[in-house]
């Protein structure tokens, strides 16, 4: 072998050895593993709470005010809850009351109710049965559903409310005799709740609140039916009302087309747990509104039949107005006529 070739050969071998040494020590390949994990300990904190400082996502919790019934002991709220209480009686029975806001997950109310039924040892209910299990109540001026789930040993009283993209749970869970005895106190407690924003600003009560005036006042003249009660509008809403049956009406006005009809219909369908539809399906599920060129009305119901939404999209010059009537099917049905007139008369 010639000297240069020999030298190159030698250098090549040396380089291969140089690379091979650490390679041999570092060939750990990530792979799928399986293991048994003990059930979460009762006192453990939620996963999010286990992050070290600086690793917690930003997101202050809404502040809630209440009047707690006598005998309830307020506890530290913790990571997910905005309020927590314990209740005990002389017989050694105990119950826990919690207030938890969660982002809307698309999970149906029926699914939530059946999860609680499972917790107290009851079989799952069907959509029809669920309608009989719940009753309409009001939580901070807006409609909500109260469910009483009684098991042999444990029972749950829960008020559930869909509110501006957040699902609120006010829940009492504990020994059946105590939960049963505390039902009236629980309802009184729910009636006293006022939900504020992250800064602690609690909106004024429905009775004291009219639709705010300018600059937040709507850019349309809204001929509000006298049967509707104006309440403080939520973020990005120009006006909001509750109806006698517990349904909710909201008005939002935005510049431009804000995505068009299909995108908004699919967004609403998502809120009700329904799948998206194609542009070609729109014609069959929308109808025009008289005197409002380009306006459409869409009627949507959740798969479990517990929620219904009537929504109108009305183009107005360079703006688009969105009107929504949401609530339990019976309440929406009762207001359907008034809602259509309201939309068509809005100038």
């Amino acid at each position: 072998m010639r000297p240069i070739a020999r030298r190159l050969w030698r250098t090549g071998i040396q380089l291969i050895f140089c690379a091979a040494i650490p390679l041999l020590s570092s060939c750990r390949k990530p792979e799928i593993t399986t293991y048994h994990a003990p059930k979460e300990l009762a006192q453990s904190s939620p996963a999010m709470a286990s992050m070290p400082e600086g690793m917690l996502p930003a997101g202050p919790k809404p502040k809630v005010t209440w009047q707690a019934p006598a005998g309830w002991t307020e506890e530290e709220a913790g990571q997910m809850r905005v309020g927590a209480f314990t209740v005990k009686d002389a017989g050694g029975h105990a119950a826990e009351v919690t207030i938890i806001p969660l982002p809307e997950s698309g999970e149906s109310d029926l699914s939530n109710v059946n999860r609680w039924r499972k917790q107290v040892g009851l079989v799952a209910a069907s959509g029809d049965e669920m309608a009989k299990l719940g009753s309409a109540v009001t939580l901070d001026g807006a409609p909500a559903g109260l469910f009483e789930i009684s098991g042999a040993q444990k029972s749950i009283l829960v008020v559930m409310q869909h509110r501006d993209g957040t699902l609120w749970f006010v829940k009492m869970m504990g020994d059946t005799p105590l939960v049963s005895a505390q039902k009236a106190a629980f309802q009184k407690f729910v009636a006293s709740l006022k939900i504020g924003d992250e800064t602690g600003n609690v909106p004024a009560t429905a009775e004291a609140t009219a639709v705010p005036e300018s600059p937040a006042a709507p850019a349309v003249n809204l001929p509000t039916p006298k049967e509707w009660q104006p309440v403080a509008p939520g973020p990005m809403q120009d006006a909001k009302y509750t109806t006698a049956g517990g349904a909710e009406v909201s008005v939002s006005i935005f510049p431009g087309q804000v995505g068009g009809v299909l995108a908004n219909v699919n967004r609403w369908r998502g809120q009700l747990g329904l799948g998206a539809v194609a542009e070609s399906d729109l014609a069959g599920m929308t109808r025009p509104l008289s005197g409002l060129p380009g306006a459409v009305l869409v009627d949507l119901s959740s798969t479990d039949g517990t929620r219904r939404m009537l929504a109108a999209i009305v183009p107005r010059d360079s703006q688009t107005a969105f009107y929504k009537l949401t609530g339990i099917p019976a309440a929406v049905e009762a207001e359907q006529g008034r809602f259509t007139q309201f939309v068509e008369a809005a100038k």
Partner: protein
Amino acid sequence: MNPLVSLWRFFSSLKLTVTLLTLAMVLVFLGTMGEVHEGLYQAQQRYFRSLLIWTGPSGGPQFPVFPGGWLIGALLLVNLITAHISRFKFTRKKIGIFIVHAGLILLLFGGLLTDLFQVESYLRLGKGEQLNYSIDNRHNELVLLDPTPADYDNVVSIPEALLHDGTVLNDSRLPCVVTVRQYYGNADIRQRAPMMDVGPAPATQGLGQSLTVLPQAPITKMDARDTPAAVIELSDAKGSLGTWLVSSLMDNAQEVTINGHPWKIALRGQRYYRPAAVKLLEFTHTNYQGTDIPQSFASRVQVTDSNTGEKRETVISMNRPLRYEGQTYYQSGFDQNDPNVTILQVVHNPGWLVPYISCALIALGLVVQFLTHLIAFTMKRRTA
């Protein structure tokens, strides 16, 4: 010349030692500069915990431009060992040098051992809270949990390193086929805003139907971590079940039914479960007077070992870690937002004793070498 002899000479040469030490100095300089823009963790990974340092246009081909820490360290170790074997002749006079070299080799070896096998995780505990697992500082896992057993959950864990756009995971350990539709190394999530988020939701099932993903740049700060997210499609025997958005920012696992069986899916910090559960009994901390600078922290904890039934209380404070079953629990800090919440760092390092032993060996070698020379010198003077 025999190629093996040539190779041996190359590895045992002093030129290689000098070259490697020079390269190490340059590497330390580059790594230190890299920290400015990339953050400590990323710089450590790129410059020191690598064979080669790669660079190139963003999204384009990458080229190796410099040897990384592993390559230089491993070569130095080989160089030291081969040079020692080639040149060192064991005599009584050189016994000290021999011990010093042995200590150095052990130190380099210990560094490699620590780098490869050390696992750092943390425990965040409020007063009265108890956890039987710690969470990895950096690594995440996509988990599918079968919650049906009464006493435990069956967990199938997919390391974050396997999650890439378009990856299809069809493994017998998984209950279904998992397809990664989209992976975000760091992303924020927020509720879909009416009128703003008019495009399709990131997922067709679960929480993702009402959320929006906001991709973020990788975190470079040491006191924060990336929060990855992914859109995962699950398919069972009947076909696609839909897509789920998972994020390490989500509190709870989402429920999924796979082949009629209930499962849960979540993306979370990798967990290390242990028989020993740690409960915080009390946490105290003090600042230097008139400042916000912490002076001392101390956590009084109760350790309950489900294997042995042992239950004991102990105090973990700065410079007083708890060593238990191969884990070292250090007092790391506390939650700035809630001073009652302690943060403990949990370190598993199988080679933690190696640096102590190597330093002791080096010190011993130096003393022996010094004494050997001193005695020889004294004896020579007496003889003279």
